[in-house]
């Protein structure tokens, strides 16, 4: 079969004034090494194609060659902004596959960490997205709060970014002394900071003009293109796996799934801001209900999964993150496929930026919230 050739991503148009514009892979607004090839008519973007794979490390092949436990630290490197969320999906998938029980306390702590991850990830998104559009101040404020969340990770798991914070069967250690108090201090502090962000952006006229009506995607398109996370919720479909197919203890918690109808960049902004609020609610409930008990269940030394396959997905900050694992009965999986939400959301970029102005491309890419480590795997 005829395959494409180097550089043959888009043909220049027929009309005069058509232009092929190459954006990235060193462009700071592409949040990594994404190369976008745009076909423009004047200022309007007509078509686009993405060139990805600059960060491809063969994670799936690696997973097929490592025992279940040993692949856990590698999952940190998928979505390095929200590493605990990746850990969580992997260990849960392994636990389902190996039929291990997880103690209650571990489940609660996992949810606490997962929601803190959502906060950290959304904070980084907010800062960089706002900076892309031109609000530089917010970047510094967001990083200040994100630093506190990372300090919490460091206090619990010992690392800040690539945390390796969960283990198959439970947790590596119990909460250290004083950690919950620190968390509560953070929970008390954060709402005021969140309102600061709202004050800076939500009603700001420049922000509104740069985001409202840009990158619109309808609900039907969202379903067709398999979008997930804030993208689909920003278009009016309340698809959140924490609610739809609850894992851990999410079915016992009381929280809302924020949605917006417009489906533009501004709607996604509002959805993510509200999600941070809901995460705070979840965190408070978890801290209140946190049971005592062991933090790791019984894990056999030699993990040998039965023959069979499963697909396990969780709601990462970017959307539906899942692992499809096929086990042939050995100590290692025979096939691992990573369902990366960024990869699939990025695919819809032509739908989102068709007809937009060139300057809006940055806003749209920022609102998809891609992490290239996850796109390229």
């Amino acid at each position, binding site marked *: 079969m005829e395959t494409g050739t180097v550089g043959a991503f888009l043909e220049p148009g027929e009309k005069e004034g058509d232009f092929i514009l190459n954006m990235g892979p060193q462009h700071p607004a592409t949040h990594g090494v994404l190369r976008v090839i745009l076909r423009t008519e004047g200022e309007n973007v007509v078509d686009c194609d993405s060139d990805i794979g600059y960060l491809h490390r063969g994670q799936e092949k690696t997973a097929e060659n*490592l025992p279940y*436990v*040993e*692949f*856990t*630290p*590698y999952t940190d490197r998928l979505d390095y902004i929200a590493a605990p969320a990746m850990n969580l999906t992997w260990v849960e998938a392994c636990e389902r596959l190996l039929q291990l029980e997880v103690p209650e306390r571990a489940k609660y702590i996992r949810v606490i960490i997962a929601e803190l991850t959502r906060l950290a990830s959304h904070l980084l998104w907010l800062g960089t997205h706002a900076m892309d559009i031109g609000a530089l*101040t917010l970047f510094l*404020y967001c990083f*200040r709060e994100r*630093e*506190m969340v990372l*300090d*919490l990770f*460091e*206090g*619990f*798991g*010992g*690392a800040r970014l*690539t945390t*390796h914070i969960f*283990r198959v069967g439970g947790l*590596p*250690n119990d909460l*250290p002394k*004083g*950690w919950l108090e*620190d*968390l509560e*201090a*953070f929970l008390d*502090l954060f709402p005021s900071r969140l309102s*600061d962000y709202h*004050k*800076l*952006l939500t*009603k*700001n*006229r420049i922000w509104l003009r740069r985001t409202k009506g840009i990158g619109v995607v309808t609900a039907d398109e969202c379903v067709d293109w398999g979008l997930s996370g804030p993208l689909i919720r920003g278009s009016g479909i309340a698809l959140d796996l924490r609610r739809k197919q609850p894992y851990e203890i999410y079915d016992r918690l009381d929280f809302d799934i924020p949605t917006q109808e417009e489906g533009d960049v501004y709607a996604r902004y509002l959805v993510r801001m509200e999600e941070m609020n809901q995460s705070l609610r979840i965190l408070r409930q978890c801290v209140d209900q946190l049971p005592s008990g062991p933090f790791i269940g019984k894990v056999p030394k030699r993990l040998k999964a039965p023959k069979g396959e499963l697909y396990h997905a969780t709601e990462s900050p970017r959307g539906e993150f899942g692992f499809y694992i096929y086990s042939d009965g050995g100590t290692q999986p025979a096939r691992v496929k990573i369902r990366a939400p960024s990869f699939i959301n990025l695919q819809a970029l032509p739908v989102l930026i068709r007809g937009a102005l060139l300057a809006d491309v940055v806003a749209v890419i920022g609102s998809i919230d891609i992490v290239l480590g996850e796109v390229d795997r």
Partner: protein
Amino acid sequence: MSKLKEFLSKAVAMADPSDLVAGASVTIKYFFSHPVTVMYPFEKREFSSCAKGVLALIPDKYGDDLCIGCMQCVKICPVDCLTVEMRKLSKEELLGRKFEEKKKKALIPTFEVDLQRCMLCSLCVEICPTDALEMSQTVTLIMTNREDQVLDRMRMLELGKDTQRYRNRLAAGEIECEAIQCPEPKHKD
């Protein structure tokens, strides 16, 4: 008429400075607060007591390591960065040994960790049956060439001594470490 109304409402919205004032109030509020940053080379932040640094070998009271050469750490390491050699002691050696009370039946001539590969995942620390390994608090090991990045047993034991000292001080309450460093800026500028 409606157009005029629309225009007027737009004009009023444009003239209304409330959004800009709200934003400016935030920035002005933080303008008068203390900085939260740390002036790095002159000031260093404390790590949490769980922080995972370079791998260290914990010494026993004779200064020897606690490793029995079971190789479980070598086996579990996902990136294969540990090199352990074990030599079992023969009967004669066991009898004529210096420290008779030691239970160890093996010598560890080589214990190396390749820092270029190690991703500080602490799987090896958790699996070790004798708690011979530990993550130290050291993160800044500056080397000028690649060969130095392979820590040998002596250097790991040195790191382990520091770690032990740190843990002892922590247990004695001499130092305390908090998870959050800066919920509110603590230091003066």
